[in-house]
């Protein structure tokens, strides 16, 4: 078991003929992901590496291959169009890697997805992986290892570091979800945490947050009433100055709720342990797991 994706997920890659699209489609195929179709308008009828058929539209791809998840590498100016196309075709999961989408475009995109059955991960995210079964994204597959910890993160390479530390410590992962670094995006920390809470294969949860917004605070509220799965949290940006965008469009402290201090407070209020050093993520998670056993 896992969340969002597993060995049966059938993936279409939008923008498959681009540099990043073809590179990562191949990497996902190598990992064992069932990439069943690609879409690049105007390139319908071609194939990627003689194995993945390319279509002009997602609707065509869905009709002919039964794909049920989409991985988007379309450039920022066309990414929202690609999302809406996917949603209109009835595909239920979108993972959008694209970086640099204007926030007002994302505001419109999210509003248009409301009321549809389509869930969005990203944009500006590494994607989602269920180790050993399905990788839909750009994360290095080999660092992952199947196991009991569900990871949800606003970051990319910091998540890889966390996964690496976990795997080195012998702790595998049920699924890892990078929700993306943009201020307006798809699934939020809390929604993914709720999924992990319901997922029988997930025994513990690792949350990787950062400065900006108040998703961490919204997520923390969850533990007031619900989850009893062991959880640990790391938050990046304790030294970040206010008002400056730290790489991610969403990583900027505006007002007090965006600071790491405010987020730490929210988690501590519900008794969730905070991992203070990024060097201690593996150890911290092990400790949280051990505490739960006793």
């Amino acid at each position: 078991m896992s969340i969002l994706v597993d060995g049966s997920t059938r993936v279409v890659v939008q923008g498959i003929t681009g540099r990043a699209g073809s590179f990562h489609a191949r990497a996902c195929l190598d990992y064992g992901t069932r990439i069943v179709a690609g879409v690049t308008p105007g390139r319908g009828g071609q194939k990627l590496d003689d194995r993945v058929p390319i279509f002009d539209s997602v609707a065509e791809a869905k009709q002919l291959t039964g794909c049920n998840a989409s991985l988007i590498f379309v450039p920022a100016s066309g990414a929202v169009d690609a999302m809406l196309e996917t949603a209109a075709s009835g595909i239920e999961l979108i993972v959008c890697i694209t970086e640099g989408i204007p926030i007002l475009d994302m505001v419109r995109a999210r509003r248009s997805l409301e009321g549809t059955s389509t869930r969005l991960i990203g944009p500006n995210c590494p994607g989602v992986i269920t180790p050993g079964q399905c990788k839909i994204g750009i994360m290095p597959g080999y660092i992952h290892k199947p196991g009991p910890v569900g990871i949800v993160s606003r970051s990319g390479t910091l998540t890889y570091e966390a996964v690496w530390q976990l795997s080195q410590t012998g702790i595998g992962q049920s699924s890892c979800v990078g929700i993306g670094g943009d201020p307006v995006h798809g699934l939020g920390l809390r929604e993914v945490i709720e999924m992990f809470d319901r997922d029988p294969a997930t025994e513990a949860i690792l949350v990787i947050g950062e400065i900006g917004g108040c998703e961490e605070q919204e997520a923390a509220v969850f533990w007031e009433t619900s989850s009893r799965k062991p959880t640990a949290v790391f938050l990046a940006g304790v030294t970040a100055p206010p008002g400056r965008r730290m790489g991610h469009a969403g990583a900027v402290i505006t007002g007090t709720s965006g600071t790491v201090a405010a987020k730490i407070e929210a988690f501590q209020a519900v008794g969730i342990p905070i991992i203070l050093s990024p060097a201690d993520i593996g150890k911290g998670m092990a400790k949280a797991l051990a505490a739960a056993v006793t």
Partner: protein
Amino acid sequence: MNVFEYQARDLLGQYGLPIPVGGVATSPEEARHIAERLAKGPFVVKAQILAGGRGKGRFLSGFSGGVRLCSHPAEVEEIARVMLGGVLVTMQTGPEGRSVNKVLVAEAPQISRELYLAILIDRGRRCPVVIGSAQGGVDIEEVARKDPEAIHRIWVDPQVGFWPYQARELAMRMGLHGPLLNPAADVIVRLYRFFCECDASLSEVNPLAVIENEKFAVIDAKIGFDENALFRHPEIAACRNEVVEDAREAEALKAGLNYVGLSGEIGCMVNGAGLAMATMDILHRYGGEPANFLDVGGGADQNQVTKAFAILMADPKVRAIFVHIFGGIMQCDVIARGIVEAVSHTKPKVPVVVRLQGTNFEEGKAILHQSDLLIRTADDLAEAAQKAVAAARET
């Protein structure tokens, strides 16, 4: 990307917002000429820096106030002479302050009321929110703390848009009635149009003044733009050259690097924004301070690594360089070769500490060791950070 007040005024003026007449000057004489062209005094002279709190700020020279009222053009010239070339310190600038290269000279209307008006994106609700308050001219965060009921919000459904009746509703909650109601709604609607059409990330007018009890004036405005949307606003993107106050940031911008200047002594080069912040945080834990945030991105090539080195080394505060790469799609051996090349080429005068982890990290380490360069390495993140902090203390 935030812009200077004088730039914000121009942009808002194009949307019909009521801007007191005035102009921007780079010399005291020019400031005087602007005042002479204006109908009558009093005038206001405002130091142009990208930080708030100017009114209560103080110049390093001892001169007090980055916003000053003057009665005569001669006085405008005098004040501009003091401000231009000076360094203004405010609550938001940090102790080093900001250089003042331009001053705004404008008519200072007789103000009967000061209001607050802003539009930004509510991340939680994922939509624009229009915020108004009858308590303007003061720090809105302070108002929010002391009197949250005094702040009024209208959330906008992006599919329906923002309609004048909503603007009137906000204006009424801000205490505007009678002959002020429709003009207020007009100001709010225009600011919203500006916000959406220009892809602003923040449009704050504080204070929005009522003058002569019958009309409005934008006395000060803070405008930020969504960097991701600048591609569709070339005229706004052109403001950028003016607004980068930090020379290191200007260089990084040209090289396509994600760089934020800070005041510490350890130059950081990291791939990925979250990892870069975490790297800064761990240096701080061990008693060091980062000189910068620098994300070279997921696909940095050797050329960018070289440029990043050059920017870090050009910073006189930097006493050690810490390179921290998690090889995911990037392979550590390739990165290592890039570092060797860059270090050989740029010959840093400060110690370089490198942590490579992830794909092919052992090959990468071997490459670094085999080079004759003085590159210190560490496997563990804690160890690497400690080495970097120690290295910075050596010099």
